[in-house]
């Protein structure tokens, strides 16, 4: 091996390259160089044939001449990109057309690189290696990402059941279902309950993220009066809020718009926003939940009395694990996943979610969803 050649860190042996050129001599020269490097080679002498060979061999990379009888290289590339979309192998043009405009056209047609004839074998090889490595890394990355999501989902699944039993049993015990408890025993059992509760919530949120990331978020949409859905959450959260002397009021000046939503998922969004408002507002606050509607959208907003969103943390707000500096005011727990999940659910509905500070104190989260047609 040539000493000046840096050892490639990724093994590319056996990766396949389709060479397309109407000039037999070129096919032979380039083919020889690439075979010598351990690549699998297939050949085509026209654009039409390239499409056929591509379909049969599904190469990892295409080296494509531009000027050929029949459909030219640019057109061949466009057809490949259209047919195979995201999974299409990278295409490198190799051509005597070397004007700046030609090169731009090549990139417009979907090529990843552009080599001009006469070519320098080392340059051709270096570029092919770069693109094959990138492609291989991308493949590995997307596999690893899918594996991570599967792992996360499985983990969360297997943690959920035991955790919910621990929580349930502690809950039962603190209800004195197994006889009376001393003050100390009660404190212990309530601590177990509290800890398993927050862990269960974390696992649930991780599972939600894994499901959504893996593209398994399926919405079962039904026409729904958004005000009724929100009202139920307001009612249920009111009990928790009362423990912090916080009042949740609901304002509805709309004509009860009906929108298509997955009720369970949307309830999760409403609950999350209201719980956040309670969590980050001082004791004795007033949380306002308002139903909004205009011609094209309907939704709701939640106003709190919390510290608001610091400008320098705004970008983290709807991101995974994007916990801000604000602390819950009653010792509640936060995973930093809640708002990211909300955003994903709202966006899956074709809607938007945003947040703004209210001058004075607090902030307002607004969810807008497309209207039912």
């Amino acid at each position, binding site marked *: 091996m040539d000493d000046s050649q840096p050892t490639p860190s990724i093994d590319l042996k056996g990766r396949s390259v389709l060479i397309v050129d109407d000039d037999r001599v070129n096919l032979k020269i380039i083919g020889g160089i690439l075979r010598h490097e351990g690549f699998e080679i297939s050949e085509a002498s026209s654009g039409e044939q390239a499409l056929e060979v591509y379909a049969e061999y599904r190469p990892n990379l295409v080296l494509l001449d531009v000027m050929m009888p029949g459909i030219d290289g640019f057109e061949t590339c466009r057809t490949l990109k259209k047919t195979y979309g995201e999974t299409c192998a990278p295409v490198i043009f190799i051509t005597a057309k070397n004007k700046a405009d030609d090169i731009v056209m090549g990139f417009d047609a979907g090529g990843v690189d552009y080599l001009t004839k006469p070519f320098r074998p080392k340059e051709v090889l270096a570029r092919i290696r770069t693109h094959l490595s990138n492609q291989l890394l991308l493949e590995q990355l997307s596999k690893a990402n899918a594996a991570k999501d599967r792992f996360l989902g499985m983990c969360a*699944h297997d943690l*959920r*059941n*035991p*955790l*919910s*039993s*621990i929580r*349930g*049993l502690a*809950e*039962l015990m603190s*209800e004195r*279902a*197994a006889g009376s408890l001393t003050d100390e025993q009660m404190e212990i059992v309530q601590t177990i309950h509290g800890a398993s509760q927050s862990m*269960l919530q974390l696992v*649930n949120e991780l*599972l939600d993220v894994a499901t959504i990331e893996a593209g398994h978020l*399926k919405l*079962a949409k039904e026409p729904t009066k958004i005000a009724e859905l929100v009202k139920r959450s307001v009612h249920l959260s009111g009990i928790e809020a009362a423990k912090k002397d916080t009042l949740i009021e609901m304002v509805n000046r709309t004509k009860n718009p009906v929108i298509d939503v997955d009720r*369970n998922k949307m309830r999760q969004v409403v609950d999350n926003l209201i719980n956040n408002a309670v969590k980050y507002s001082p004791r004795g606050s007033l949380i306002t939940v308002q139903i909004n509607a205009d011609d094209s959208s309907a939704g709701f907003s939640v106003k709190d009395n919390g510290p608001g969103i610091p400008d320098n943390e705004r970008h983290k707000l709807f991101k995974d694990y994007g916990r801000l500096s604000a602390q819950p005011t009653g010792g509640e727990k936060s995973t930093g996943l809640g708002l990211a999940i909300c955003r994903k659910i709202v966006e899956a509905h074709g809607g938007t979610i945003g947040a703004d500070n209210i001058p004075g104190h607090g902030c307002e989260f607004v969810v807008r969803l497309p209207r039912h047609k």
Partner: protein
Amino acid sequence: MNFNGSILIVDDEAHIRTFISLLLRHLGVNRIFEAKNGNEALEVYEKERPDLILLDVNMPMMDGIETLRALKRANPDCVVVMLTSLANRQTVDESATHGAANYIRKDAPFEEIGRALAETIDTCFETDAPETKPPPQS
């Protein structure tokens, strides 16, 4: 909860059976049976004829839906409530098609589980009160 009948809990996980069974006792149900898989569930069902079956959806070997179908073959009128850890729409719909009366999320707070149980019992045993049924001879 005003229910004098008997309940069979089917779940492959012991801690879930313990939790649900304690919860039921707490709610005043006294006759509780347990089974750890589908086959055992069918055996216990034949022997004890419980009034209500709480059936886990996810079990190895014979899963909840299969067990549900087998139970319905044994007695089309048996009342089965599915236990799920996720409100998986598809499973919920599928079990409803096969005659499940309701579903309960076992990861819900226990008040909610209790409420869902009470609701099911109210709807399913409104007219033919199970109180009238003699206890099984054991």
